């Protein structure tokens, strides 16, 4: 047996695997009884048969129950039993066919599988230990059923439609809400693809999303930010909101997806409503905003206008001051044009209307000084035609201001005489024009023309009003200047005349002085002779005359002396009008007292009752008032000399709010018929033999009172007395 080495043995073994040549059939080895042998054989066959059936049953079992745990072990176990059976079969066959080498091979394979199975079983023991028993399963099942029914309860009571799908999108479970929302019975949709609940147009998209979700499952909303729609059984669609949550099923190693679907038709409607409200609101806001903007715009415009008005007012005041500052009106108008030009207009022209009606441009101003000459050139070359309606001549004719807010090019073209004329007008810039007359009491002095070139600004009604006001003030200034000039002229003439008169008066005054001087000298000299020689005759030659002759000479003497007095008084009277007044405060009462004392002294034999009011104080010339009071009191004294008691009152009364002084006596009085003669020089109402006097006293008093701007009048009654009233 041992003559072969191992490799030869192995090679020979496999070459003669099915050879039976070197071995006897078992029946031929030993002493097999029939029984023994057949028992052996039959038992082996029976074992083999059983061991053959077991794996088949196992495979069937596994096939029938794929969820069976540890299938590998089952497979190994099946193989192990099958090979065990084969060893038994070969044992039985060997009784007739001694294939011992095959038998060994079979046994080796069986052994190998057996040990693999042992290892496998060993390895799976912990797993097998963890495998639940049926009881466990039953308990678990119960638990499961409980939790499932709980879950189902939750599912059913969920307010949303709950759709549970498998990872491949098959509907596994739905709740009553789902039936209600989608209109399907649950049996109609369970097992169907979830897309049944999705409008067709989203199917493709939905499928890919769903598959994507299964790969990265997590709790989230579906289609965030998108409008989702469900589809009812009847095909109608409705907006939905879906939240997804994955649920891992342990046993199935798969996930199911729970979708909570909410019909948000109402919400959408509300949203739409809100949106609509919002839109309305927004619309309102926009409307209000635009209204506000409009109001703001208006307010701004008003403010601008106000500012402009303010500016204009300031300008007008400035202009007025300027206009009033000079009386040279052509200079004034030039200043005006200068003022107006940058601030109000781009250019300004002032034309003067002469007395004979000719129109002369006296000043032109332009923002661009170079264009001033242009304006003159235009005026010279193309003087405005008086017969053409509109323009300065029309304004001069009608006195009505004109406003041309915007002169279109065509109009300029129609006005132009030729291309050069048009060019000049364009260069000057005649886009917007105001022409206002310079008027005063319907007399037109000229016209003020304001112009705007193409600066974008145009004149409007406000500007016209402003220009009218400006023109009104300018006209007034012109009128004033003219009046002033006239006044100056007439003043100068007047002054000349006054000077002439003064000179004349001075000459007359001088003559008068010379006259009174010569009167005092020359008229008196002959009187002296008359008096002197008459006296001499009476003295030295009295024996030559009888009494009558002497009487005549006496009369000559008296007459010449009276004439001397007359001359003296006359000179006094002349002097009163001539001398300068020297005003001071005078106490008339005191002055009257001293005069009365003097009078009393001159006639101490007379009884007198004199009343003089205290403190009559006035302002006047002391000397003159003394003369006046002396005359008046002297008269009162003189004309009451025949009364047994002289009564004189010097006092005041109030008349028409004025103090009236009066001097009253109880003397001879006079007939009021002759009152007019009273204050005339040399006028006497009594004869000399009754009351001496020259008739100049009251004329003197009148002059003194008049020089004090006062008046004097009298009341008298014959034999009752006289009252002189005077004011000062």
């Amino acid at each position, binding site marked *: 047996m041992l003559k072969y080495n191992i490799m030869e043995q192995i090679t020979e073994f496999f070459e003669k695997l099915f050879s039976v040549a070197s071995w006897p059939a078992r029946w031929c080895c030993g002493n097999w009884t029939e029984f023994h042998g057949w028992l052996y054989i039959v038992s082996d066959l029976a074992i083999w048969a059983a061991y053959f059936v077991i794996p088949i049953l196992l495979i069937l079992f596994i096939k029938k129950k794929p969820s069976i745990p540890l299938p590998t072990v089952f497979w190994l176990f099946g193989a192990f039993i099958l090979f065990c059976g084969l060893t038994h079969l070969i044992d039985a066959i060997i009784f007739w066919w001694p294939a011992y080498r095959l038998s060994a091979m079979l046994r080796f394979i069986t052994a190998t599988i057996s040990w693999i199975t042992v290892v496998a079983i060993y390895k799976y023991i912990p797993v097998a230990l963890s495998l639940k028993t049926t009881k466990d399963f039953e308990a678990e099942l119960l638990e499961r059923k409980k939790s499932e029914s709980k879950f189902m309860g939750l599912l059913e009571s969920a307010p949303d439609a709950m759709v549970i799908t498998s990872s491949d999108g098959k509907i596994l479970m739905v709740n009553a809400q789902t039936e209600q929302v989608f209109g399907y019975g649950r049996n109609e949709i369970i097992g169907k693809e979830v897309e049944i609940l999705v409008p067709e147009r989203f199917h493709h998209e939905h499928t890919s999303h769903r598959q994507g979700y299964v790969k990265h499952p997590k709790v989230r909303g579906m289609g965030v930010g998108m409008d989702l729609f469900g589809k009812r059984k009847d095909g109608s669609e409705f907006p939905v909101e879906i939240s997804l949550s994955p649920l891992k099923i342990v046993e199935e190693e798969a996930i199911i997806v729970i979708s909570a679907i909410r019909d948000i038709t109402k919400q959408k409607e509300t949203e739409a409503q809100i949106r609509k409200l919002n839109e309305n609101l927004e619309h309102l806001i926009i409307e209000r905003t635009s209204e506000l903007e409009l109001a703001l715009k208006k307010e701004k415009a008003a403010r601008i206008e106000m500012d402009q008005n303010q500016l204009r007012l300031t300008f007008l005041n400035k202009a007025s001051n300027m206009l009033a500052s000079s009386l040279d009106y052509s200079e004034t108008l030039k200043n005006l044009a200068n003022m107006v030009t940058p601030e109000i207009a781009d250019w300004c022209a002032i034309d003067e209307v002469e007395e004979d009606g000719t129109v002369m441009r006296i000043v032109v101003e332009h923002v661009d000084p170079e264009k001033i000459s242009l304006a003159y050139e235009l005026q010279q070359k193309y003087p405005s035609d008086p017969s053409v309606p509109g323009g300065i001549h029309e304004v001069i004719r009608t006195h009505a201001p004109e406003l041309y807010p915007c002169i279109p090019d065509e109009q300029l073209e129609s006005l132009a005489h030729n291309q050069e004329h048009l060019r000049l007008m364009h260069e000057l810039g005649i886009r917007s024009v105001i022409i206002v007359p310079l008027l005063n009491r319907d007399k037109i002095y000229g016209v003020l023309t304001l112009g705007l070139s193409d600066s974008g600004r145009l004149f409007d009604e406000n500007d016209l009003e402003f220009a009218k006001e400006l023109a009104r003030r300018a006209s007034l200034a012109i009128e004033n200047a003219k009046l002033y000039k006239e006044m100056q002229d007439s003043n100068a003439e007047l002054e000349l005349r006054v000077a002439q008169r003064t000179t004349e008066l001075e000459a007359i005054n001088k003559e008068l002085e010379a006259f009174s*001087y010569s009167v*005092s*000298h*020359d008229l*008196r*000299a*002959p*009187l*002296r*002779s008359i*008096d*002197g*020689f*008459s*006296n*001499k005759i009476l003295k030295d030659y009295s024996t030559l005359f009888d009494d009558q002759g002497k009487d005549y000479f006496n009369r000559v003497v008296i007459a*010449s*002396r009276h*004439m*001397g007095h007359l001359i*003296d008084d006359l*000179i006094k009277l002349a002097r009163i009008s001539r001398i300068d007044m020297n005003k001071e405060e005078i106490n008339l009462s005191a002055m009257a007292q001293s005069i009365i004392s003097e009078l009393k002294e001159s006639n101490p034999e007379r009884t007198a009752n004199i009343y003089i009011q205290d403190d009559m104080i006035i302002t006047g010339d002391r000397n003159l008032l003394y003369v006046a009071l002396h005359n008046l009191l002297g008269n009162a004294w003189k004309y009451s000399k025949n009364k047994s008691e002289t009564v004189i009152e010097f006092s005041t009364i109030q008349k028409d709010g004025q103090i009236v002084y009066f001097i009253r006596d109880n003397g001879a009085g006079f007939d009021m018929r002759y009152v007019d003669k009273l204050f005339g020089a040399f006028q006497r109402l009594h004869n000399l033999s009754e009351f001496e006097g020259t008739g100049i006293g009251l004329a003197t008093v009148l002059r003194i009172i008049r020089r004090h701007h006062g008046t004097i009048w009298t009341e008298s009654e014959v034999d009752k007395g006289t009252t002189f009233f005077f004011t000062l």
Partner: protein
Amino acid sequence: MMKHSEKIILLVEDNPDDELLTLMTFRDNNITNEVIVARDGEEALDYLFGTGKFTGRDMNILPQVILLDLKLPKIDGLEVLQKIRSNLITNLLPVVILASSKEEIDIMKSYQLGAYSYIRKPVDFEQFSIAIKQLGLYWLVFNESHSGIALAK
């Protein structure tokens, strides 16, 4: 008498009536001094300075008093007075103004120019007579012992 006659009165008067009345008044009042009458201002000055028709007169003889009217032909009284005062020979002679004017300006100027007195000739002859009498007494009688130079002191 000689003394008296030495005391010459120079009367400067253009009105013959006034001259006569003045002389009569002198006589009535026993003023017997020699009276030289000059009928205008020129004549008065000629006498005083020995000029004109008075050329060569004894210049040692000067009037005791000069009665000077203001309103005079040729040279008026105030000018005569001024000349008298501006000449060394005559500047101390007493001059009495005898005028018909009572104008303040005449009175003032007269005194300013050195008149000794100002008498207004009144219309009333009696008063005139009284005035002349007093004048003569004062200048010719009471002041007899005074020379012009003494008076000037």
